[in-house]
């Protein structure tokens, strides 16, 4: 219970401080503040994919339907967060680069992630029978995950990147943020991750309750 209060306070602080305390980034100005929301949300959308895939693997190994339910929940949340990431990203894109969508590699990757979630959920809704649905969607989620390394390799070569490359992590993969920025960014990252897992467990509880209700 205590952590929920901590989350509430922490999240509120983060939101307020983003607009008041954090320093605007040199080149892009005030609009870069969205970075504190956009990046954590994008991170969570990828995390959700990982969670969904791991649950799929576990389902195939144990045939326990709970894992498949988890996979479905993680994917729905993933879709939500990907959508949020796309929206926040577009707002930033319009302000910083002049148009809402540019097929920049990161934008494209997010879009592909959106397609994968959409396809996965479309598959789930096309199979009414539980065990079959579980088997088919687990297989698909693993297939999609396996494509990711190729996407990461291939997508940046289609268009040149507009994303600020040196803001967080430079060529040597060292964290390049100043103290103030870090102090706000990492808690935000943590807070969004906690929110994701909280929603994840809440959804699981709801599914269990509605399953009980049907019986």
């Amino acid at each position: 219970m205590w952590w929920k209060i901590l989350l509430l306070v922490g999240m509120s602080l983060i939101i307020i401080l983003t607009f008041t305390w954090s320093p605007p980034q040199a080149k892009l100005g005030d609009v870069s503040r969205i970075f504190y929301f956009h990046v954590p949300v994008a991170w969570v959308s990828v995390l959700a994919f990982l969670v969904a895939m791991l649950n799929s693997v576990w389902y195939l190994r144990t045939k326990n339907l709970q894992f498949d339910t988890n996979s479905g929940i993680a994917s729905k949340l993933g879709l939500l967060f990907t959508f949020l990431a796309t929206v926040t990203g577009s707002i930033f894109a319009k302000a910083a680069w002049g148009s809402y969508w540019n097929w920049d590699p990161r934008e494209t990757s997010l879009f592909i992630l959106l397609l994968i979630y959409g396809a996965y959920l479309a598959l789930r809704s096309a199979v009414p029978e539980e065990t079959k649905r579980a088997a088919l969607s687990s297989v698909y989620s693993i297939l999609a995950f396996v494509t990711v390394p190729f996407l990461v390799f291939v997508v940046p070569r289609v268009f040149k990147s507009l994303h600020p490359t040196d803001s967080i992590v430079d060529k040597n993969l060292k964290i390049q943020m100043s103290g103030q920025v870090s102090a706000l960014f990492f808690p935000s990252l943590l807070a969004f991750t906690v929110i994701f897992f909280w929603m994840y467990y809440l959804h699981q509880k709801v599914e269990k309750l509605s399953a009980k209700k049907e019986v």
Partner: protein
Amino acid sequence: MPTSLSLWASRVLALLGKEIKTELRTRYAFNSLLMFSVVTLTAVSFSVGQFALSVQVKAALYWLILFFASMAGLAQVFIKEEEAKTSYLLKLAGPASIIYLGKFLYNWVLLLVLQVIIIPLFVIFLDLELSNLALFLTVSVLGSLALSAATTIIGAIVSKANVKGALFAVLSFPLLIPVLVAGIEGTQLATGGARFSEGWGQLRLLVSFSVVMLTVSLILFEFVWSE
């Protein structure tokens, strides 16, 4: 008990042979593939008229047409077994891996045959310049290998689902993006006068993608195939 490699191969080829035979008699899949490609190609050629297309655009069109033709023609590979109820015959006949490999090879052969027909059409209607023929053919062959590797198991998944229509395309597209990108770039190079060695990166990508997809599909196919 039969375990030798050559026996395995002959069993897979038996399935491939059956597929080709039935296809020759019904022409369902191939007609879809061919009709789609020809119609789209002529429509584009007609609409473009005298306007000259760049190498990039032609390469993209080539793979676009291949992609959509695959969506039209490769979707039924397992659905037709479910609908005709012949899947029981297959299940009795052999282990899942043999069934998968036979179907995969069949899809690949379908695409190769399609390309034999539409490549000349591309040259004629869209003035596609095959400046580096070897690279172009290699990209086409490996690209169709990759296309088949990814779509065969999707075809199996879709055959077990209820809504069959667009589901195949929806599920396939995200997985095929690497293939499309590598294919388009490779074809660009081949029709733009590049040397064969410049295409290595794309070829490597297509090969590694195919290997990974085939391996994962072989492992996962059992879960889709068995009830």
